[in-house]
């Protein structure tokens, strides 16, 4: 092979290899999960084919199921993007769970203060800002602690999860809840329309227009990461903080700013439940969506497109669990989700080495 031909071919070849490297681990993860799923279903004395068919019928097979999948996809897209944004900068944000809750809480408080009856078009930007501030503050604290004191963000975000959730529980139970409930009063202004208003078939499902905010956030994240100088600096810090610092990037600033941005993205996800679905803040509404965001980011390989696809997959599994619950315990999908995460995390380095070896062999021949 001549050198010029090689140079012409290599960009395409490398982008193909990158795609392979990105997609192979999730495929491996889903295959392993399917096998473990078979074993669990058989252990319960059921037919795997039958259960998987039920799972698909209950999610993608009817409009209500699909609506529920889209609703869950929305929250997971936000938390997945939040975690992915951090990981691109080399930061592990385990705090999406409490950032999501704080975003929803602040938005709900603003909603209760706003005059009644404003149209959503005016209130939506206000709510987005409020939720972003709520989540951004909770995300920014561990970012600042890392930048200033070197406190590892994995531990501080985990610890802050407990602190923030306890604080929110206190505020709700002691100050703003409706008697004998775990939620605030109804928000009477700027409630966001459900998708069933436009597509009647979705009737009864919680899917609402926040899904469009989620998609817009995914596009904006991709643009920010790959098309702006700030995004480039963020990724540079993620790959080689020392080199980035030497190249003139203020690494500490990137750390706390990225954590704030990550928290803000997770916080906006709170709107999906608080303003799109229930129209009040309720204790523990996040119910694990923050932790699943880690899974979504890992399986989506920290790329906005991957995150949206992974959110769809995990949302389908979560909703599918409810669809099969009469036949096998729905916790089967919790197990399978964990299996997917472990298998993907374990196969990423393996696939990378395999492809490197393959490429080296290809260049020798």
């Amino acid at each position, binding site marked *: 092979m001549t050198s010029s031909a090689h140079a012409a071919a290599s960009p395409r070849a490398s982008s193909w290899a990158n795609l392979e490297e990105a997609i192979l681990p999730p495929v491996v993860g889903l295959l392993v999960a399917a096998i473990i799923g078979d074993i669990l279903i058989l252990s319960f004395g059921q037919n795997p084919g039958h259960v998987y068919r039920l799972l698909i019928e209950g999610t993608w097979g009817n409009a209500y199921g699909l609506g529920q999948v889209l609703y869950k996809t929305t929250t997971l897209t936000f938390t997945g993007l939040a975690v992915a944004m951090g990981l691109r900068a080399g930061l592990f944000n385990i705090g999406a769970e409490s950032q999501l809750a704080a975003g929803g809480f602040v938005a709900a408080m603003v909603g209760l203060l706003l005059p009644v009856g404003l149209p959503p078009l005016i209130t939506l930007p206000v709510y987005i800002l409020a939720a972003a501030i709520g989540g951004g503050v909770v995300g920014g604290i561990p970012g600042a602690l890392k930048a200033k004191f070197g406190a590892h963000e994995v531990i501080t975000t985990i610890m802050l999860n407990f602190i923030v959730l306890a*604080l929110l529980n206190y505020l709700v139970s002691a100050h703003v809840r409706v008697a004998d409930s775990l939620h605030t009063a109804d928000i009477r202004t700027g409630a966001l329309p459900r998708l069933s208003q436009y597509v009647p078939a979705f009737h009864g499902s919680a899917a609402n227009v926040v899904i469009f905010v989620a998609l817009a956030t995914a596009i904006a994240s991709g643009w920010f990461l790959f098309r702006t100088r700030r995004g480039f600096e963020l990724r540079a810090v993620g790959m080689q903080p020392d080199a980035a610092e030497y190249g003139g990037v203020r690494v500490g600033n990137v750390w706390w700013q990225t954590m704030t941005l990550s928290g803000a993205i997770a916080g906006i996800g709170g709107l999906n439940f608080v303003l799109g679905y229930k129209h009040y803040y309720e204790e523990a509404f996040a119910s694990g969506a923050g932790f699943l965001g880690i899974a979504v980011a890992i399986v989506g390989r920290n790329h906005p497109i991957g995150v949206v696809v992974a959110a769809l997959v995990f949302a389908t599994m979560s909703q599918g669990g409810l669809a099969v619950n009469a036949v096998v315990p729905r916790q089967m999908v919790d197990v399978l989700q964990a299996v997917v995460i472990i298998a993907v995390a374990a196969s990423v380095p393996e696939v990378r080495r395999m492809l490197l070896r393959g490429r080296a062999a290809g260049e020798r021949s």
Partner: protein
Amino acid sequence: MIVFAFLAQTLRIAIPYLFAASGGVISERSGLIGLGLEGYMLGGAFCGALASYYSGSPWIGLVGAIAGGIALSLTYAVTAIRFRADQVVVGIAVNLLVVGATRFFLRLAFHSSSNSPRVAGFGVEQSGSGVVALVGNPLVWLGVLAVAFVAWLLYRTAFGLRVRAAGEHPVAATSVGIQVNRVRYMAAALSGILASLGGAYLALDQHQFTAEMTAGRGFIALAATIFGRWDPVRAALACLLFAAAETFQIQLQGAQLIPSQFVEMIPYALTIIALAGVVGRAVPPAALGRVME
């Protein structure tokens, strides 16, 4: 007498923390992040209850718990070491796995989505001062022993020296002939055993397994590990401190001096303060979370 009851209740609450934090110390000192402690505890509680139910003996229950703890911690260690998976990701996934799996097998084995039937346990049937129940429960003594055992192992044995070398400077450890990965597998298994015994204590004390009965105790143990600066004795003191705060809150429940949520925050807030280094900075083992190339 009030003081006595206070101390007894504190120790009772501290026992699962002591087990799990001892496991956390040994794991993190070897270089493996201890994020799976919560999962090992819950897995130990379930396997302990299951084995006790089918055998009728709480001692067999302990064997079951240990088996579960080893299986989970080695799953974590193999994916983190052999497959070089990110330790934070796998640690969190192990916790999610155990929450789902224990509920799944709860329905499979006992046809219940919330709790197991009554199993043979160690707790004495009375809830007075709790002192009798405390002294009569062998796991209480075992929990205190676990701290001494890990302290002895870490600082007085060749294995402990290898564990510390693996966690601080794996390359140097390798150059003097230490098989770092083997040491880490053993440290992981040990942490799984210890944490699962903490979980078994909960199930066998209450004579049944309840879904998600560990309720974040593994993370409090992790907080104690860090707040105790990765030292077994200091981590144990942190466990006692956290347990005393809880006891205080329980005893004062009627008085409503401080909202319970603020007492809940104490372990986590102290850990963040320790990590930020306001009073005597907590510095983790140098090679924590890094796998040998």
